[in-house]
């Protein structure tokens, strides 16, 4: 079954970029995740699928500590970025989030110019020492996000004036601009139509190899299309995690099979 992803397989770095071991999340009394263990590799797109409320988004937000912003959330277990525990006291959350970027469900460009949107990250982190360098970063990020050609003549226009799909690509460019190691995407296409969705999917494919990409989607077809690894969550549990082609053509777990073939009881 692995034929078609052979090339992807071949380039898997032996060392995973991020590892999660037995991660549990509690929202107050409620347990939202029951011990999830997963590896995230650079060179691979990892997709999280599962029905609403299965914990896939919750887990994603653990990976860059966005759950910190929710007071009631409590996280148990160990998540490492290149071997360092990201919940360790000496881990700086500002740096962590610079290294683990995030793209949200609804495109959320800042109400500033396209240029400023992309320059925001490098500015706050002091990544550019001159205007020219900043310009270069902005251009490079937009090019990588496949948006440069569409916006190069109107970098000073507001980011919110773009179409939904372009906004989402702008958000990706913004995330890229701080040169993260991992990019988390939380249902990045659910607010978009099929055309914009296809463009984002193509972009994700382009970015693969340079960044470790994790994408949450409740569109199974999308997971099948863009990812090389798929994790199926159900009721806060990681049911199955493996090669995407394998999951979609020959899943091992009955629950996975029932879910992807549309047998929802």
């Amino acid at each position: 079954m692995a034929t078609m992803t052979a090339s992807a397989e071949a380039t898997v770095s032996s060392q995973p970029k991020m590892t999660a071991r037995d991660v549990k999340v509690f929202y107050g009394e409620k347990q939202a995740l029951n011990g999830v263990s997963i590896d995230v590799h650079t060179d691979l797109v990892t997709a999280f699928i599962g029905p609403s409320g299965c914990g896939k988004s919750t887990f994603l937000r653990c990976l860059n500590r966005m759950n910190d912003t929710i007071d009631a959330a409590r996280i148990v277990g160990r998540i490492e970025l290149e071997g360092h525990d990201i919940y360790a006291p000496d881990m700086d959350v500002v740096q962590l989030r610079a290294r683990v970027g995030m793209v949200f469900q609804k495109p959320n460009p800042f109400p500033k110019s396209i240029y400023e949107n992309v320059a925001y990250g490098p500015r706050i982190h002091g990544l550019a020492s001159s205007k020219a360098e900043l310009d270069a970063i902005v251009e490079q990020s937009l090019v990588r996000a496949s948006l440069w050609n569409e916006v190069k003549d109107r970098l000073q226009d507001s980011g919110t004036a773009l179409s939904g799909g372009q906004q989402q690509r702008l958000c990706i460019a913004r995330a890229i601009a701080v040169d993260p190691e991992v990019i988390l995407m939380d249902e990045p296409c659910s607010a978009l139509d099929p055309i914009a969705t296809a463009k984002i999917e193509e972009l994700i494919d382009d970015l693969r190899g340079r960044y470790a990409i994790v994408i949450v989607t409740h569109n199974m077809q999308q997971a099948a299309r863009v990812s090389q690894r798929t994790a199926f969550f159900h009721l806060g549990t990681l049911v199955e995690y493996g090669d995407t082609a394998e999951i979609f053509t020959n899943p091992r777990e009955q629950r996975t099979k029932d879910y992807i073939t549309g047998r929802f009881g």
Partner: protein
Amino acid sequence: MSAAALILALLGLAVAAYLAARARAAAFAGRTFANAADRISSIHSRPAYHGWYVALWALVPALILVLAWSVVGESIVADRTIASLPAESQPQTTLDRQAFLTEVRGVVSGQLAGAFNPAADAAVPIYRSIKTQWSLVIAGLAALLAMSGGGFAWLRVRPHFRARPRVERFIMIVLILSSLVAILTTFGIVLSLIYESVEFFRRVSPIEFLFGTNWSPQTAIRADQVGSSGAFGAVPLFWGTIFIGAIIAMIVAIPLGLMSAIYLTQYAKPKARKIMKPMLEVLAGVPTVVYGYFAALTVAPAVREFALSIGISNASSESALAAGVVMGIMIIPFVSSMADDSITAVPAAMRDGSLAMGATTSETIKRVLIPAALPGIVGGVLLAVSRAIGETMIVVMAAGLAANLTANPFQSVTTVTAQIVQLLTGDQEFDSAKTLSAFALGLVLFAVTLCLNIYALAVVKRYREAYE
């Protein structure tokens, strides 16, 4: 029959009409149909709408008649009564006439045991009979209108009759009439201010009023007194208003209000917010007269003490600073709530977006939230300025009445609103420049706040739409 009784009777009639028509409509709606579609297409309106339709026809025309009568009826009866008196006992002047009628009515209503004016005493039975006659006529007319209106409507009650749209159109008319009140109020304000101001500007040149720097609106005690027609240069007033409302108050209110809003929306834990937000609301709910009293009683003396202690000898007990600071504090919750609204209107996704880039909370606030909310905040500040310059009680009580053109905050200044109050309390003669000048000041105040409001509201509206 009194108007109230008549209205009650009409209401009763309307209720009866409603019940009857509804029953009639229910009779044909009660038939059975093969399916819902048939029923929907063969009976237009539900029985209750037929009831309403008939009831409205029975009630509204008659009600209009009765209400009209209750407005003009009294004067008709009075005219008739006086006309039917012998010519020599008719009151001649308007004043006489009013006194005469007051006595007659007093006797009729039983408040007076007897009239002092014998002619009035004589007019009482005439008044009574005329009033009874007319009341009967009107009651009869009303009954006729109610019957014919109701009857007309009754005949139209049919399965296919579209009662609902007609009832709804009536409701719509009532709604539109309600919304006219706002326009009428605006027109009322504009017209009354302009009318009186024109009177004023006939006496005092607008140029002097707008650009003169001397304000002492003492009126002549006698008309022939020379040279004491007062000075109406309003510039010191304008300056005082701006100094207190737009400068001192804002220096206090903007930073405190803005930072409060930021802390509340971005930092405070939900529990803390639950306590702090109502606290600001309490601050907003305190009446201005209380602030004024506080400013005059507590703050002003303290400011004066402070000024004296730092060696400012001419510090007044009614200082611009005292009024301005208290006004600023009064405005804090206003600025804070406008800023709060503007900041919360920025989608949470933007905050998340920035945090996810690795920005700290303050960076997110300063670089994303505030710029995004800026139009809303600016609009809010402009509204706050508008509110501050229109604020009356604090300045009346704490700022004093001395029209000084000074930038010394420890001195007393006066404001437009304080002067309006000053000019219009006590005896008013609507032909004196002093009284009329209040309306001119009011006009200026209205014009300035109007411009500020319209601009600020437009800014805020455009801002809101950006995030909808």
